């Protein structure tokens, strides 16, 4: 067992290293670099000025030399300083991480609280007006792009509920109430959109389980309808739902960029986006690494949840 875990961890490390190396090369292939961005525009593009700055950032070295220098400091835990702001990137990342984690966790909770009950409702009220209605709402949720939905919520709040802030992030540890107020709309935007996926998954999984023989048996045994539904059917139906929720959470880490942009949240998505747009290599490097790590963590969490829900997984 220990060997298994050690092997898995080593494999994980190797993946992250390869990923970092890949990112290192990829970001340097895209046209334009940080010198373009910082010197471009009105300053004038003197050759000496460019050379001076490339030298300052070490971009004048051959790619292989740059790679080894980077790998050396990376492995010793020095993730570099931002080429644009001159601040250590690890500090910037650590400031942003809680924002995105809060947004993600909140959105997943909203998505589950909305999606599962609605999915169950749609499954048990099959072929009724209720099902059609829930299905329609779900389809709408799937088709509305989040930037539009977010803009609608902002305008709605600005007109009808001006006490809900539409912008201005407050860190959770400095003022929790203000933080929750500021995060309310972003979480709602992202959560409602993902709830559509969860709802549809719950519904189809429930339908499949409800048609299974053990449900007929438990009904024939004379169990209460509620017990059949929640103890036998829902629990079994939840496994694919957990999988989907895990994938959704992963996507939110990077995919929340639009939400972060719209609500001016200083999250990881915008951090990486700004890094890419400004060709700020150390920022991209650590941002991608953080997102990859988070994906791995979420996957492991989903694995554990399987075991909690399904005893068969635990036995294996």
């Amino acid at each position, binding site marked *: 067992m220990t060997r298994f875990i050690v092997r898995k961890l080593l494999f994980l490390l190797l993946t992250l290293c390869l990923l970092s190396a890949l990112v290192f090369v990829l970001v340097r292939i895209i*046209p334009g*670099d940080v010198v373009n961005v910082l010197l471009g525009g009105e*300053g004038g593009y003197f050759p000496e*000025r460019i050379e001076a700055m490339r030298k300052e950032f070490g971009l004048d070295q051959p790619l292989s030399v740059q790679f080894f220098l980077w790998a050396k400091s990376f492995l010793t835990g020095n993730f570099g300083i931002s080429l644009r*702001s*001159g601040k250590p990137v690890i500090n910037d990342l650590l400031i942003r991480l809680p924002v995105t984690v809060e947004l993600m966790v909140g959105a997943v909770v909203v998505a589950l609280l909305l999606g599962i009950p609605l999915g169950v409702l749609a499954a048990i009220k099959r072929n009724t007006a209720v099902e059609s209605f829930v299905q329609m709402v779900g389809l709408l949720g799937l088709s509305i792009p989040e930037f539009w939905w977010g803009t609608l919520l902002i305008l709605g709040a600005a007109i009808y509920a001006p006490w809900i802030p539409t912008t*201005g992030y407050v860190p959770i540890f400095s003022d929790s109430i203000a933080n929750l107020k500021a995060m309310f709309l972003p979480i709602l935007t992202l959560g409602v959109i993902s709830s559509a996926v969860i709802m549809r998954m719950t519904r189809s999984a429930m339908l499949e389980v409800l048609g299974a023989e053990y449900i007929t048996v438990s009904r024939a045994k004379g169990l209460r309808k509620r017990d059949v539904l929640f103890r036998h059917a829902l629990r079994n139906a939840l496994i694919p739902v957990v999988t989907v929720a895990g994938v959704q959470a992963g996507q939110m880490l990077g995919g929340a960029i639009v939400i972060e942009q719209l609500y001016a949240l200083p999250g990881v998505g915008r951090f990486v986006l700004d890094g890419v747009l400004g060709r700020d290599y150390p920022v991209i490097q650590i941002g991608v690494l953080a997102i990859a790590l988070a994906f791995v963590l979420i996957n492991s969490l989903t694995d554990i949840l399987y075991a909690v829900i399904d005893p068969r997984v635990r036995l294996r």
Partner: protein
Amino acid sequence: MNSRILPFVMGLLLLLSTASGAGQAGAGQKAEAPGSPEGKKGGTLTIGKVGEAPNLDPHMTSAIATRRVLDLVYSKLVILNEKMEAAPDLAESWNIPDAKTYVFHLRKSVKFHDGSPFTAEDVKFSLERIADPKGTSWGRAALDIIDKIEVIDQNTVKITLKTPHAGFFAILGSDYACIVSKSVVQRHGHLRDIAVGTGPFKLAEWTTNVKTELVRNELYYKPGLPYLDRIVMQIIPDELSAIAALKTKQVDMTRLQNARNYRLVSQPGLKLVETENLAYIYLGLNFKVKPLDDIRVRRAIALAINREGILRTVGMGRGSLLGPLAPGHTQFAVPIDQLAYSKQDVAEARRLLKEAGYPDGFSTEIISPLPADYANIADSGVAVQAMLAQVGIKAELKQLELATYLNRTDRLKDAPMFMQMNSGRADPDDQLYSVFHSTGPINRAFLNDAEVDRLLGLGRSTLDPKERARVYEALQLRLAEQVPMVWLYCELQTDVMQDYVKGFLQTPMWTYRFLEQVWLDK
């Protein structure tokens, strides 16, 4: 419409739009005299700001977002007022013994935000840091005119120029000419994440992409100023979100960039301060790409474009047309109707193309920044593309993100046409020399015209204002004939704020410096 009436109507429309624009701008400023005696001390002003400063070095970063923060932190030797005249700031007075020599007498007992005294050494250090031939400053080309800087005593600095230069004060008042602390640079190594100046506000907090907080500088050298205790610049990347925040009073003030959003802010409780700006949008042409080396083709392009139409549709009529100098350069700008190739004439454009050997037009490419980066530039590009199609020029419009875009314009230099904006400089020399001189660092057209070079040199060395205006008149006529770019329009700058924000003053250069006079009436 009859082709003879059309230009007349357009001209009339133009006249009306500029007249009303100027009227509004005047009204906005006259209503509140700067530094009004009833100004109240205290309070926090929250500004919704679209762009985040990439870093805080005033000499190395030309990013507008950086400049608007540092307006408040650093002072310069002179300050450009709303008429763009140089007024004393850190330099209390000066004398000019000969046309090449300037002696500046500095304000005494001024202190930097860290408490250390400001001296002539800091002036010498700052200007030399910008002019460093091996350095990366964006003000380097302008300060190249300085021969030497001598410290006479603690409060006196003597600057000797290589040749007489009429635009020297405008250069000293430019955004790059901030006076920094010598000891801070020597101690910290760089200024990317630190800002210690002598300005009205001190940098208290800079959290990337969240906010920048500035607090009142108690040691500020102008008595009684600033009024505000604190200025918070909150970064709101999306302009619509910024407007929503303004409407719900989450922010006190913001600046509109997208002309279309103008209608959203006309409501009681909000006021607009509109100023004629020097910044303009243009279509850049690259002479190194055939057939743009042919002057007839360039003239045809200029004639194909309906500038009034672009101003009316993309700019929502909020701005004015311009030639090589914006109308804001009141003493120098030649009215647009006196400039060649400035009015649309499709038939003449076709004739010129035919004469140049392109009767059916040709295929080419226009690159443009993304609409998300600057909607008005990108939208103008779409209009230009459609107008060029009318004379048979099939231009592929490529919208590129900034780094890729700059790679094409600045490094590869292979884009035939490009949509761009120039933020404008106070002095015509500073405005035109670097863009149109054959050795100019941002001569992206690769214009190489002996007459233009001669007039640029003359404009620089002619000190008599009247004579200088004549030189620049000739230069503008010549540039319009050469068509190194198509000047589209300059925008009316719009700052929107709550009614209780008093004493706000804007200049054609767009600065936040005069927030030192702003106070809150609530």
